[in-house]
């Protein structure tokens, strides 16, 4: 047995990791992520979870390194537009909802992920409390999305049971003008839905209170987020790591074509599940132009074009790109 051991955390820094950002890029591209805090906050995983436009120096990453893109639909499509597959020497993981974004020459380099919780809350396993969150701007949800998610919640847990539960909402609002398509009245409308359809007595913890809570056992985490900009959020990891559960997954026909390759525990309570995709089988049953994500993209692009934040050109590019990619496989 070795008799002496050095212990030196000075060298235990996450140094030289992807978390180190270049100052130049940080200034240039991190603005929208600032407005999506705390959902966009950095966290660590050995798959290098990151936001692709967060100022990371991907070109400096070692060849073969894995990169897990936490990004939503729009940054991902921009990424596939800007970066050529032959220039990318790493392995990219994107959320499985965005499978249809992957250009043909990228397919070899892209795998898929989703986040799973050990705890699923439903009628049989009801939580003691419910935590509802989302960003109050159009990057996350509009009142219709809230309505849909609230209905899903009520169905899963039973509206009659919610009165006995503690309900907390954390709905920050920053930089509304950045995203377009957002009426100031939306906040009132969403608040009304929460009060009318869930309950009147809602707690509203501050971020500091949330981040100083050590355990979210018996808590249902509900993030209302259509994933336009951030798909894999800090807050979801934070809650799940501390014991929170999720609603049952929405089962989709397309799930059949994802082959599970690996599961990586992120904490004692939650994990990433990784998949490969049978693209040919998938596109035979699913027209990517008819996915809900494409409609989200269109809405965002149209709204943003008025604000000059996201050019109308993007929508044209996106449609052309999808069509070009699938023309060999689909009759559109």
């Amino acid at each position, binding site marked *: *047995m*070795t008799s002496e051991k050095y212990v030196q955390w000075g060298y235990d820094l*996450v140094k030289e990791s992807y978390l180190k950002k270049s100052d130049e890029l940080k200034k240039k591209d991190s603005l929208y992520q600032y407005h999506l805090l705390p959902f966009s906050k*950095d966290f660590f995983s050995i798959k290098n979870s990151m936001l692709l436009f967060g100022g990371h120096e991907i070109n400096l990453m070692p060849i073969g390194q894995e990169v897990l893109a936490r990004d939503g639909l729009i940054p991902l499509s921009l990424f596939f537009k800007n970066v050529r597959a032959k220039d990318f020497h790493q392995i990219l993981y994107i959320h499985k909802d965005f499978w249809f974004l992957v250009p043909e020459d990228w397919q070899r380099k892209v795998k898929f992920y989703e986040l799973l919780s050990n705890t699923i809350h439903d009628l049989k396993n009801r939580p003691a409390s419910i935590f509802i969150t989302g960003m109050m701007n159009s990057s996350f949800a509009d009142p219709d999305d809230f309505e849909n998610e609230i209905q899903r919640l009520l169905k899963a847990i039973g509206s009659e049971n919610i009165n006995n539960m503690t309900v907390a909402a954390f709905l920050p609002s920053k930089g509304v003008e950045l995203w377009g398509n957002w009426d100031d009245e939306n906040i009132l409308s969403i608040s009304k839905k929460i009060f009318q359809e869930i309950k009147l007595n809602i707690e509203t913890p501050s971020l500091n209170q949330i981040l100083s809570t*050590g*355990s979210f056992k018996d808590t249902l985490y509900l993030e209302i987020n259509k994933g336009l900009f951030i798909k894999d959020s800090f807050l979801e*990891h934070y809650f799940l*790591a*501390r014991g929170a559960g999720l609603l049952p997954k929405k089962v989709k026909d397309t799930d059949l074509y994802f082959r599970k390759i690996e599961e990586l525990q992120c904490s004692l309570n939650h994990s990433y599940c990784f998949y490969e995709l049978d693209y040919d089988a998938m596109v035979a049953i699913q027209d990517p132009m008819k996915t809900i994500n494409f409609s989200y993209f269109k809405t965002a692009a149209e709204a943003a074009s008025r604000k000059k934040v996201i050019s109308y050109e993007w929508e044209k590019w996106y449609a052309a790109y999808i069509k070009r990619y699938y023309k060999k496989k689909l009759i559109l």
Partner: protein
Amino acid sequence: MTIDTKLVVAMFRNNKRLLIIRSKGESFWTSCKTISKNLTAAYLGLEDREVNFYDIPQDFIKQDALFNTDYIENLAKKIQEENPSEVVFIDHVPHACKILKALESFLKIDKMPPLIFHIYGDFTYFSNEWIWFSANYHSHPVKFITASHAQENQLRFFSKTTSGVHRYLFPLDSNDFYFSSKERVQWRKENQISEDEIILLYSGRISLQKNIDLLIRKFVEIHENNNKSFSLIIAGEVDDIGAPFMGVKGYEGYMFSKIQQELKFIPSQIKNKIRFLGNVERNELRKVNNASDIFLSFSLYHDEDFGMSPAEALATGLPSLLTAWGGYISFENSADWACRLVPVTLSEFGHKLDFTNLDATIMNYSREEFRAERAKRADAFMKYFSVEGSRDGLKKILNEEFVTFDGFNYLLNYLSLAQDQLRATGASEQLTPSSENFYGQIYKNYIESNKSSYL
């Protein structure tokens, strides 16, 4: 302004009324929740003093500013109306100095009763706050109460004089932690662990400076070097705070990934013997302690001023093997309970642990006959460490005369400068673990206390 200590003490000494200022809402740190609860119980049991409380939220400044809650103004009124003989701060948050600073607008310092502070290991982290206190409360009657020799030494290192620094441990509630052979059998049965399996236990936060990765590596060696069957149980929540004192930033998810990477290279038959329980409630933690055979902690945490988890283990009679670091050191040197230390030295390149006697200690502690004396060891430990058993120590401190606070010395200013540099640049060569820098000077107090027990 010079304060006449004798006059201040005389103004307040005719009554024996304590005003204890506590945190409203529990501390995030599990050990501090326990400490606050048990210190409260220790004060409440004082027969010769009336004890009153004032609870103040951690974000009192914000609440007073935004919601007109008047926490500070009401505290000032309470002090004036009740005229307590001493004001006691027992929690680490909100920081006592922040409360005192806010009180300045409502209560002059010369109207402030003598002050008692329970000092935590985070003293070094709040250098700016204590520098403010040093400048403003110079000559005020003050007592500092530390929980171990190591913390006492460290506080004296930063003080102009050695007087006014006392020691009273963080007591344990004998209803929370005690030995139960029934719980041992029951927990093992529920968790499908056989009676002859030797359970090594770590409880506490899974944090960078707690060295859980090292603990796992040592467990593998113990497993390989000995013929008996061992399990390692790790009870506690993952904490990604990093090592802020020395500028190592933590990221959510980092510690868990680090531990997973450590486990990846361990043979599966050994890996299967390692269980993570996550955060466990106090009652469950007592059962886990009772079910276990040896407590291990190789922590080198920069504010390990006491060691609540080892104390809880020792309260159940569990023999413990700990690093000779900070408050842990004072648990040794008793024939009445079983605690051995892994020697720690600080070299130019960081901490060095000497595990020469690890196997021998493990084998000694896992003997059947050693286990048979567990109830006796638990009782002996709680004789000194329970709320009731330790209260005389608190009484003694309270009955001692106050001395004039002479202020902290220039070393605290130097620490503050180093911390400013750390905050500005993300690193300070003075604060990384080494014998050749300022860290070495501060933390030699956490190493060179080997001969001081709690007894």
